[in-house]
Every structure is written in structure tokens, then in C-alpha cells.
């Protein structure tokens, strides 16, 4: 048994490819917990950052700087009465949130946090991610219909129309990135998530910069389509609160509603990780081929620890700035304690054995985190689109652009071959 567990550690494969059930299970549990923590953190960050963008303070009451607010929210949601409308279709109403959460979490078994840090590596990685994440549209439609109410039904209709239209533009962008894995080099392309990042490493270029500006345009199409795909502002028509109260989850409350919340945020993380894998070099650190050598390696290895130490420093700075009132004593101590914990994590990340294993995960998470910040930024910046404008952007701008990029990428990629044939004639 112990040998079985240890045998994986020496292999250079993902647990799924090595066929090791134990480590696959460990990875699944770690990813599940990590995602839940990320969603909680994202909840706090979104409220805080949005508030600061609008010159407000945001949550300040529960815990220092509202740090415990998501936990308080979660407890409130779990204790809330779970209401089901009398005329609702019971079974479908009950299934919908579970379906959405399943679709949102299943996607993560192919997300490559590092060359070996994925549950498994599928030959059809990107296809699998796109397919399973498109299933969440079904869950939303089920929720909207089963509520047997007008606002949710309209929200569900909007959502399904929006997702089906933007999926096409998204697919075009993804195909042009997948084509880049095979062009201008030996062998064939690949759909596997790990293979795509390895292709970027082998070609020495992130696909966002390849065939400039074609990679950039494809990335832009994906970046717009993915916001629409996750029903986030400025494309959040399915839950437009000024028109449809809360859209497809109007009738949901308590735990079921929190499942929708969880699914929305993990879907955001999922599409961001597709974008990171396809265009931004996945787990690769900046300039992996240019800045090589022991010195640069050490320099980039130190980043994870420094990030955590920086966060700890922020905590201590805020601790000093806390009001010196007896009522704030517990909060001040709590904040200092949080800073100490973050600092300790930072110090642990400086240990050579740890930092070498963690750096892939760190760079991947940082890139995804940048996308998460962009999501919040969009929400704070752009007004909501009207539905006809949304359809116009999807069908009349993004789709033709995607088709054009696809053809041009194929043409530019095949150009050396074409040239050769003409010259040899």
C-alpha cells in the first residue's frame, strides 16, 4: 500500500495517466478545497474592490476589514429557510443547482496547474473543458423553467441564447490556438491541456504573441466570449437585477442559491484557466527560455514566498492603522494573527524543496488571478449591454473576426510549406 503511494512520487506523470487512484483522489480533494477557498476569497475581494472603485468602504464590520464576511454569509445561507415555489417542478428544481455545480467542478480534472499537477491529462482536454462547461447552460435552463415563474424563465431563455451564440466565437478562437500547437514545427498538434503548454514551451513563445497580431486577436475574442459565457457583467443579462430581479435564480434561496453562486465563480476560474493555458503559457514562468540559468531560476523561485510576505506586510500595516479603541482589540489581534499565518506560509515557500514544487502552481494561479481581477474590473467599469447589442456583438463582430483569424492563422502557419512548394517547382 505504502509502496503504491510512493511509487507515484518518482514518476513524471499526472496521477490519471499513471493510473494511481490514491493520488488522483488526493488531487481531486485538494482542487475541490482550493476552489472553495478561492471562491470565498473571490467573494470578499469582489465586494471590497468594487467598493473601492466606487469610493465606498465595502464590508468592514465582520472581522477586520470584513475579512470574515464571506464566512458569515455562508453561515447565513446555510441556515436560511429553503423555499420551493408551490407550482415548481420539484425534481427539476432540485436537480438544477446540482447539475450546474457538477458541470462547473468536473471541468477541473484536466486543468494543468503544472506539468504533473493535474488530475489527469486527456487527449481531448480543451474539447472536454468546452463541452462540460457548456453543460452548465442546461442547468441554468432547468432552473429557470422549473421555477415556474416569469422572471426566471426569461432569464433562462436569455442565458441559453447567449451561451449558444458565444460558444461559436469561442470555439473559433480556441481552434486557432490549437492550430498553433502544430504549426512551424515537427509532429502534429494536440488538444491536451498539458500538451498545449508544452508546445508553447517548445516553440519558446506564448501563443498570445505568436503570429502577431493573430494570437492577440484570438485571445481578445476568447476574453470577450468567456465573460458572456459565464454570465458576468457587462453581459449579465440572464440575471439583470434591474429587469429580472435575479434572473434564473430568483426563486432559489439558501443552500441551493449558494450552489449557483459557487458554480458561477468556479466557472469563471475554469474559463480563465482555459485562456491562461491556451494563450498565456499555463504554468510557465515569464521568459522561461530567455532568462535561464541558476540565478534567474532562483529569482523566479522566490516569487511565491515574497507574495505571501507582502500580504503579511499589508496585514501588519493595517494592524498598526487599526483604531486604538478597546472595542477593536479582538479585531486587531485577529488581523495580526492572520498576518503571522500568511508570513509563516511565505517562509515555508522559501524552503528549496517546497518552492520547486510550488512554483508551477503559483504562476498558473497568478495568471488566473489576473483574470479574476479583470472580471471585477469589467463589472465596475462597463454598463450592461442591451440584448440586441449583445447578439450583434456575438454574431456580427466576434464570429466573423474569429473566422478570419482562423483562416489567417492556417494561412500564415502553412506559408513556409506553400513557399517551399512554389520554389521547388
Amino acid at each position, binding site marked *: 500500500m505504502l509502496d503504491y503511494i510512493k511509487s507515484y512520487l518518482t514518476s513524471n506523470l499526472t496521477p490519471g495517466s499513471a493510473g494511481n487512484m490514491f493520488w488522483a483522489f488526493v488531487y481531486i480533494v485538494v482542487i475541490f478545497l482550493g476552489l472553495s477557498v478561492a471562491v470565498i476569497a473571490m467573494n470578499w475581494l469582489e465586494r471590497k474592490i468594487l467598493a473601492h472603485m466606487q469610493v465606498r468602504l465595502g464590508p468592514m464590520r465582520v472581522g477586520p476589514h470584513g475579512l470574515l464576511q464571506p464566512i458569515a454569509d455562508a453561515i447565513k445561507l446555510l441556515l436560511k429557510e429553503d423555499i420551493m415555489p408551490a407550482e415548481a417542478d420539484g425534481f427539476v428544481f432540485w436537480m438544477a443547482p446540482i447539475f450546474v455545480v457538477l458541470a462547473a467542478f468536473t471541468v477541473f480534472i484536466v486543468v494543468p496547474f503544472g506539468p504533473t499537477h493535474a488530475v489527469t491529462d486527456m487527449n481531448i482536454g480543451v*474539447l472536454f473543458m468546452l463541452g462540460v462547461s457548456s453543460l452548465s447552460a442546461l442547468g441554468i435552463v432547468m432552473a429557470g*423553467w422549473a421555477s415556474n415563474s416569469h422572471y426566471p424563465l426569461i432569464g*433562462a431563455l436569455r442565458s441559453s441564447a447567449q451561451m449558444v451564440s458565444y460558444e461559436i466565437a469561442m470555439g473559433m478562437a480556441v481552434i486557432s490556438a490549437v492550430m498553433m500547437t502544430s504549426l512551424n514545427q515537427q509532429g502534429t498538434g494536440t488538444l491536451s491541456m498539458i500538451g498545449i503548454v508544452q508546445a508553447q514551451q517548445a516553440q519558446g513563445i506564448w501563443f498570445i504573441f505568436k503570429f502577431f497580431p493573430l494570437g492577440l486577436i484570438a485571445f481578445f475574442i476568447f476574453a470577450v466570449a468567456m465573460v458572456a459565457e459565464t454570465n458576468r457583467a457587462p453581459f449579465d443579462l440572464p440575471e439583470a437585477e434591474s429587469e429580472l430581479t435575479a434572473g434564473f435564480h430568483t426563486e432559489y434561496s439558501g443552500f441551493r442559491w449558494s450552489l449557483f453562486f459557487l458554480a458561477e465563480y468556479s466557472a469563471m476560474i475554469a474559463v480563465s484557466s482555459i485562456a491562461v493555458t491556451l494563450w498565456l503559457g499555463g504554468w510557465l514562468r515569464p521568459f522561461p527560455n530567455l532568462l535561464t540559468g541558476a540565478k534567474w531560476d532562483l529569482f523566479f523561485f522566490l516569487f511565491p514566498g515574497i507574495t505571501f510576505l507582502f500580504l503579511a506586510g499589508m496585514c501588519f500595516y493595517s494592524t498598526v492603522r487599526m483604531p486604538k479603541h478597546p472595542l477593536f482589540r479582538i479585531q486587531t489581534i485577529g488581523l495580526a494573527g492572520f498576518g503571522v499565518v500568511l508570513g509563516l506560509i511565505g517562509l515555508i515557500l522559501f524552503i528549496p524543496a517546497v518552492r520547486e514544487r510550488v512554483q508551477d502552481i503559483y504562476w498558473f494561479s497568478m495568471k488566473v488571478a489576473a483574470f479574476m481581477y479583470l472580471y471585477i474590473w469589467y463589472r465596475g467599469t462597463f454598463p450592461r449591454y442591451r440584448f440586441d447589442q449583445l447578439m450583434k456583438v456575438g454574431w456580427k463582430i466576434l464570429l466573423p473576426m474569429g473566422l478570419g483569424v482562423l483562416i489567417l492563422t492556417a494561412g500564415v502557419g502553412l506559408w513556409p510549406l506553400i513557399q517551399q512548394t512554389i520554389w521547388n517547382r
Partner: protein
Amino acid sequence: MAADPTNHMEPVATPFFFYLLGGLMLIGGVLVITRKNPVHSALALIVTLLAQASIYLMLYAPFVAGVQIILYAGGIMVLFLFVIMLVSIERSQRERQFNKQWVVGMVAATALGGLFIAVYTKGRGIFPEHALPAVEAQNTQNVGTLLYGQYMFAFEIASLLLLVAIIGAVVMAKKRI
């Protein structure tokens, strides 16, 4: 790529999974025609399609499975539900669910069942002697090479057909073009 040929995995294509998925497909298929509520029927159809995708995976055809999930479960069924949701449930539930053509149905079912039994008992020569080597890692590439090489003509014909269908849909939906 992680799937190197030296790494022999335990096959996932065990009889247990086959019977589980096959059972799911059958239950889903029966529910599609027996449920009175059209939305329930559509949801049962989704279960069938997903189980079918898993069976493709078991047959070492991951590309077909992925396409099945994207196109049928993620695309077509969403459009199906989109339309069905707008239909009044009360009216559709009053409608007759089965037509009374038992004789024709029986004949068709017997013919199909007879064909299956004939293939199962006598058709040993049709199938290869033993299972083909599972080239899971090359599946997508192989499908691509076949589609754009050997079956190029059929592929282009199919795409032309789809184009005609798209144009037809636009012509029928728009009053003034």
C-alpha cells in the same frame, strides 16, 4: 504528451461500466417516450446522450465523445429546451401521447430485434478477431487525417448540406430579406 506508449493502463472498459451506462441509456430512452411532460422527456434524452458519450470514451474514441457532449448535450439540447420551454405544458399534456399503430410498431421492432439477434449469433465474421489496439493518444489526429484525406468528398458534401440548411432556415425565418 503524457500518454506514452510504454505506459499500459488498466482498461476502463470493464463490463460493469458497460452495463451501467447501457442501463442508463435504456432507462433514459424509455423515459423520453413515456414522460408526458416534454421538458422531462428532453432531460431524459440528455441523460441518454451523456451515457452514450461515456460509451464512446469506453471504446477509446475520446474525440467522438467530446464532440457528442459539445454538439448534442451542450448545443442541440439547449436549443431543444429553449423551444420546448415556450410551449404551454397544460396543452401538451392533454395531447395524445401514443398513436394506435401497434401492428406497424410490432413489425418494425421484430425486424430490428431479429437483425440484432442474427448479427449477434452469426455475425462473428463481420467483426475483427480481437480488440483493436487502443490508440487513444492518436484518436483526434486519426479522425482528422481520415476526414480530410480519405473521406474528403463526403465531408464536403455534408458541409454543403449544412450550409443549405442554414440558408433555408434564414429564408424561412425572415419575411423580407
